[in-house]
């Protein structure tokens, strides 16, 4: 459904764009219907930029983003609008996602004005109630209220409901629970997971490995704009190949295991791995990024599990 094919994003900085800053470097990945792909990375990894490029909020510098076979960057006018009917996004800060001076349900009105101008009132209200029911919100509690009267969790659910009003096929969720309280974030997570049973694909952007692990079918680990490892979530988490992946896994605070214990386990795992998983499959062709444009960035080490080269990439 969604396919990123060797996508780059470079920003021009400095007076008259004299310097270039690469935020995303040669990223390729797919999101299938009903699948949750989590993009995991620390700040500066390019994970948010990828989500924004898919949403057409940022332009693509090089490469293609295709949705159902169409190059997304060519969409204009009506075509773009029908793209947004199918692809929507939710962002990190729920309070900043709502215009603070208007009532929160204005996000629904905007959808109506842009996409359902002809829909009669009664039908529309029915639609809203159905969407709110899907995200387990009581209309009486959230309609006709201002954003600051609602909790972060309620606001994020309203945005999921907003996406449901359109018949979305793909949802970009960018750190959508990182600002929610522990007691409510898991419910929003579960709602996202429920979307997949409707056949919606989710691109789940997060810095939190535990959340990515909980939700996703496919995990993509990004570092400085480059995919270092990608594969089925259970494989990536059970058998991390790239030193950066193990480094991240070793930094996650667990509830029932101390860091020292996790580190020891990972050290044993690392000892079994060679110095560079990519090198083992592509001998003599190491180096980052590949100098040969035809050379793949990632090497497949087991079915559905690929890893990038780990040379020339000191950690920290």
């Amino acid at each position, binding site marked *: 459904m969604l396919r990123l094919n060797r996508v780059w994003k470079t920003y021009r900085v*400095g007076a008259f764009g004299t310097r270039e800053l690469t935020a995303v470097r040669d990223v390729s990945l797919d999101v299938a219907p009903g699948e949750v792909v989590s993009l995991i990375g620390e700040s500066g990894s390019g994970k948010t930029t990828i989500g924004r490029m898919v949403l057409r909020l940022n332009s693509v510098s090089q490469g293609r983003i295709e949705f159902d076979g169409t190059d997304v960057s060519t969409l204009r006018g009506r075509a773009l609008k029908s793209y947004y009917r199918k692809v929507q996004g939710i962002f990190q800060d729920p309070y900043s996602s709502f215009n603070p001076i208007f009532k929160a349900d204005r996000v629904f009105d905007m959808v109506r004005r842009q996409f359902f101008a002809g829909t009669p009132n009664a039908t529309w209200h029915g639609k809203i109630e159905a969407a709110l029911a899907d995200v387990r919100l009581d209309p009486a509690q959230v309609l006709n209220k201002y954003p600051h009267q609602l909790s972060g969790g309620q606001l994020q659910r309203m945005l999921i409901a907003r996406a449901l009003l359109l018949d979305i096929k793909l949802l970009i969720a960018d750190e959508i629970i990182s600002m929610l309280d522990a007691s409510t974030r898991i419910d929003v997570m579960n709602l996202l997971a429920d979307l997949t049973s409707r056949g919606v694909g989710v691109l789940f952007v997060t810095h939190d490995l535990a959340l990515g692990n909980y939700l996703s079918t496919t995990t993509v680990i990004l570092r400085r704009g480059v995919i270092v490892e990608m594969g089925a979530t259970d494989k990536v988490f059970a058998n991390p190949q790239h030193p950066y992946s193990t480094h991240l896994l070793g930094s996650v605070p667990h509830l029932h295991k101390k860091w020292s214990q996790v580190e020891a386990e990972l050290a044993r795992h690392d000892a079994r791995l060679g110095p560079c998983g990519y090198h083992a499959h592509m001998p003599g062709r190491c180096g980052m990024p590949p100098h040969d444009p035809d050379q793949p960035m990632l090497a497949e080490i087991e079915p559905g599990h690929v890893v990038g080269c780990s040379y020339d990439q000191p950690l920290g």
Partner: protein
Amino acid sequence: MGRYFGRKSIVYALTCIVAVTINWLVPRFMPGDPVLQMLISRGPDTNPEQTAVIMDYYNRLFGFDVPLWQQYLNYWGALFKGDLGVSVWLFPTPVADVVLRALPYTLGLLLPAILLSWFLGNKVGAMAARRKWLDNSVLPVGYVLTATPYMWLAILLAWSLGIVAGIFPTAGGYGFDLQPAVSWEFASSLAMHWFLPFLSLFLVAFGGWAIGMRNLVIYELESDYANYLAALGAPPRLIRRYAFRNAILPQVTGLALQLGVLVGGSILTEVVFAYPGLGNLVFQALLHRDFFLLQGVVLFIVIGVLVANFVIDVVYVLVDPRTRAGMQGVSA
């Protein structure tokens, strides 16, 4: 840092070109022959010989007979030679000479007024930020001062301290009966004539700086670094010093932005006190419809302000480490 100066230099170069171009262009908007019109407007031609000389001079200078682009280039060429034309009112003195003669008076007025008002205004504003009683008096006085037109405060001072109280003279740069000389008498006359125009310029500007600094310091005192220092038990003295240092930076930028206004203020003040500086020249040029003098003075003022602006930008780089560290824009 190179980036910072590169960008600033482009702005100044462009501004300079725009200013000169406006100066060159504007007279050409006037219908008919501006030189002739100006000469006619001076009234009955008492000296046809002089008129002929002037006509000849300007026709040669502007070369109304050559193509426009040539005229434009000629104008720049003359400018680079420091040739601002010839005053009609003070014929045949070159405008550049007239300007240079008046310049010391204006600088003598402006520089102390700007620097002192900036310095004291910032001091008093910072003090007001932490003393309630001072704040309650500085704030209203400051706002009244910034709301006061320069020329009216000048009139008020001239009338009250000059004419009613009779302490200070109210017109001229020095006594009418004196000739410029290196003597006590002349120096004291100079100082007496200088004081009131200086005071009125100083006061209006002072109000603005004091208010600005007060607000900035209050803002800085609530910043995270101030809170952190307070949490570590740093004495208020240190926190206030840091707040002051941080707040002074926008005030430096503010000084650059206010220069044009201050120069405008000095024009008005000089008019009130008939002070023999550039401002009075502007006024005399207007009165005598000597547009060449007017243009020359204004062009001189504009370029002077640009140069001063550039100097302030250099100073800013010296006082703000962030511009020097060259880290701006990396996070963008």
